C-alpha cells in the first residue's frame, strides 16, 4: 500500500463518541483541556456533542453533565486553529439544534442516519448546506448492507447538499476488504468533488487497518479518537494512526509527540474503564451490534443477571440499529423472565 504524500484530514471523536464511554459526563474543564491539546497538536477537526449527537440528552441515552450549548460555548472560543463539528441524528435532534450549533460557531455538521434511511436527512442536510456549512452525510452501520445500497443512499445525501459522505462502521464489524470495496465504489461513482470519510470502531481490532484501507481506496477524512476514547472498544486510536501515517509518509499535519501526550496525560487518566477489546466489545464487532450498546448491556447484566454477551448477540439477531438503546433493558427483562430470574 503506497500512501506517500496522500492528504488525510484527521477528525477527533474523543469529545463526542468518547462521551459514550464517559456516560456523557465529561466536565467543561476536561473538554477544554483535551480540545486545546488536540488543537495544539494540529488536529484540524474536533467533534463536540452528546454521544448521540445534538439533542441526545435523554433518559434513553443518558443525561449529560452539561448541555451541548454549554460544551460548545466552552470549547470553541478556546481553540485557535481547529474547527469544531457536531453530530446530528434526525429523529433525535432537529434543525433547531443545528441552528443553535451554527450560532455557537460549529462549522461542520454531520447528519447521521442508518445506512438505509438517508431520506430522513433531507431537511437537515439541506439546511446545513444552505447555511454554507461543511455538510457531511454519515451512513451508520454500513456493514449491514451491500456497497451498491450504500452508494444509492450516499447519492441521496449528495443530492440534498452533502459535500462529504461517510461510510461508518458503527459496530466495528468490517474487515479491510469490505472497507476497500465500499469506499472504492463511492469514490468511483460519486461526484469527484464529494469528499469521503471513514469512521471505525476497534471492536475486532481492525480500526487502524480499516482506516488505512479507506485512505487507500479514496477516503480523505478519517475519524479517530485520542487514546481511542469512544464507544465499544473505542475508535481508531489517533496517536497510533498518526504514527502509522508518519511511517507511510502520508500528509496528516499532526505532531506525533504532542498527540501522544494528550492521550497519555489527559485522556487515559479520565477513563472510567479501560477502553479495550474485552469480551463484550468483541461481541459487538463479531455480532455487528451498535457500539454504544456496550455499557447499557453491561448495566443490564448487573441489574438482571443476564450476560451482556447474550443480550448483545440477541440484539444482533433482531437487527437492531443505532439509537435502539431502549431495547436493551426491554430485552434483558424478557430474557430474565424466560429464565425465571424475575
Amino acid at each position, binding site marked *: 500500500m503506497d500512501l506517500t504524500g496522500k492528504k488525510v484530514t484527521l477528525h477527533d471523536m474523543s469529545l463526542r463518541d468518547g462521551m459514550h464511554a464517559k456516560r456523557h459526563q465529561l466536565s467543561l474543564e476536561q473538554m477544554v483541556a483535551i480540545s486545546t491539546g488536540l488543537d495544539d497538536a494540529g488536529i484540524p477537526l474536533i467533534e463536540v456533542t452528546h454521544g448521540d449527537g445534538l439533542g441526545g440528552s*435523554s433518559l434513553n441515552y443518558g443525561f449529560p453533565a452539561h448541555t451541548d450549548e454549554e460544551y460548545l460555548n466552552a470549547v470553541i472560543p478556546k481553540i485557535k486553529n481547529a474547527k469544531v463539528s457536531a453530530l446530528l441524528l434526525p*429523529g433525535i435532534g*432537529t434543525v433547531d439544534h443545528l441552528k443553535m450549533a451554527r450560532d455557537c460557531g460549529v462549522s461542520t455538521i454531520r447528519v447521521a442516519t442508518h445506512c438505509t434511511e438517508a431520506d430522513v436527512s433531507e*431537511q437537515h442536510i439541506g439546511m446545513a448546506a444552505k447555511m454554507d456549512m461543511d455538510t457531511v452525510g454519515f451512513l451508520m452501520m454500513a456493514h449491514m448492507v451491500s456497497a451498491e445500497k450504500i452508494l444509492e443512499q450516499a447519492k441521496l445525501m449528495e443530492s440534498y447538499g452533502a459535500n462529504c459522505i461517510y461510510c461508518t462502521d458503527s459496530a466495528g464489524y468490517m474487515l479491510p476488504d469490505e472497507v476497500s470495496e465500499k469506499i472504492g465504489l463511492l469514490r468511483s461513482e460519486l461526484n469527484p468533488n464529494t469528499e469521503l470519510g471513514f469512521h471505525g470502531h476497534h471492536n475486532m481490532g481492525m480500526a487502524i487497518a480499516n482506516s488505512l484501507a479507506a485512505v487507500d481506496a479514496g477516503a480523505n477524512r478519517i475519524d479517530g479518537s485520542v487514546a481511542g476514547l469512544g464507544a465499544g472498544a473505542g475508535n481508531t486510536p489517533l496517536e497510533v494512526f498518526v504514527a502509522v501515517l508518519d511511517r507511510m509518509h502520508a500528509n496528516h499535519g499532526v505532531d506525533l509527540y504532542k498527540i501522544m501526550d494528550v492521550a497519555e496525560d489527559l485522556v487515559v487518566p479520565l477513563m472510567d474503564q479501560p477502553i479495550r477489546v474485552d469480551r463484550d466489545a468483541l461481541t459487538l464487532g463479531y455480532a455487528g451490534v451498535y457500539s454504544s450498546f456496550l455499557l447499557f448491556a453491561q448495566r443490564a447484566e448487573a441489574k438482571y443477571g443476564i450476560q451482556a454477551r447474550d443480550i448483545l448477540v440477541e440484539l444482533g439477531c433482531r437487527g*437492531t440499529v443505532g*439509537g435502539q438503546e431502549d431495547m436493551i*433493558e426491554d430485552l434483558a*427483562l424478557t430474557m430474565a423472565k424466560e429464565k425465571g430470574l424475575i
Partner: protein
Amino acid sequence: MSKKLKAVIIGPGNIGTDLLMKMQRSEWVEPVWMVGIDPESEGLKRAKEMGMKISSTGIEGMLDQVIKDDIRVAFDATSAYVHAENSRKLNELGVIMVDLTPAAIGPFCVPPVNLKKHASQLEMNVNMVTCGGQATIPMVAAVSQVQDVEYGEIVATVSSRSIGPGTRQNIDEFTRTTAGAVEAVGGADRGKAIIIVNPAEPPLMMRDTVHCLTKEKPDQAAITASVHNMVKEVQKYVPGYKLVNGPIFDGNKVSVFMEVEGLGDFLPKYAGNLDIMTAAGLRTAEMFAEEAYNGTITLPERG
C-alpha cells in the same frame, strides 16, 4: 335521525384506505365520500370499488354535496400544507374535522385521555398528534394521573416500510409535535420524543418505550394499576396494544415498554403505528356520534 354520522375521507393513501376499511365496520360512522387529487390513483379506484362516492379534484369536487349527503365528519389524511384550507371550508359547512396530518390547528386528541372533553365541547377540529404520540401518551397520562411528572420521554421505533415519504421529509415535525403533546396531553412538565426507523426484514412490530420522571417518589402500586387500566382503555380500539415489560421503577424513573400490533386491515400487522392512528381517528368520530345521539351535544344546524 340516524345514529350514524356520515363521513368524508380526504386522502386515499394507506391511512385513508385503512380508515375506510375500519369505518365500514363502525356502528357510529358511515363512510360516504373518498377525496383525492388523481383520478388514476389506486386509492380512489379502490374506494369506488368499495362503494364510495369519489372526488378526484380535492374537496372542491364535493363541497356542494356536503349538505345534500348530510356529511357531518371529515378525516384529513393528506398533509399539513393543505389541511388548513380543507378544515376551514368543511368547518364552514358544519363538518367536524378529524385531523390526521401534523398540521395541529385544533387541540391534540388522544382518545382515552381527553376525547370525552373534546366531544362534549363539540371541538370542530381535533388533531390526532402522531402515531408515536397515540402509542405512548396514554402511558404518560397513566403516570401523571397518579402523581406529578416533571419529565416525560418517549422512544418510538417503527419499521422502515411503515413510514412514508411525508414523514421522512419532515421528521422534525414528528419529534416536535409528539414532544408537545407529551406535555399538553400526557401531563408532563417537559416532554421529549425520539423516533427510530428500523429496516429489519421481516419488518419489526412498532415498539414504544415511555420513561417518566416523577417529582416525588413514585407510588408503585398506584402507577402499576393506572398503567394496566390505561392499556385496557387503548385496547378497546387497538386490540394489539400490548404491555411487554414494566412499569419498572428506578428511583423516580418509571419505564414502560410497549408493542403495537395492527389489525392488518389494509396495512400489514407490523404497521401498528399507522393502525393506531386510524383507529384513534375513527374512535374520535365515534365518540362525537355517540354524544350527538345521546343529546349531550348538538351538531351544527342545517337548513
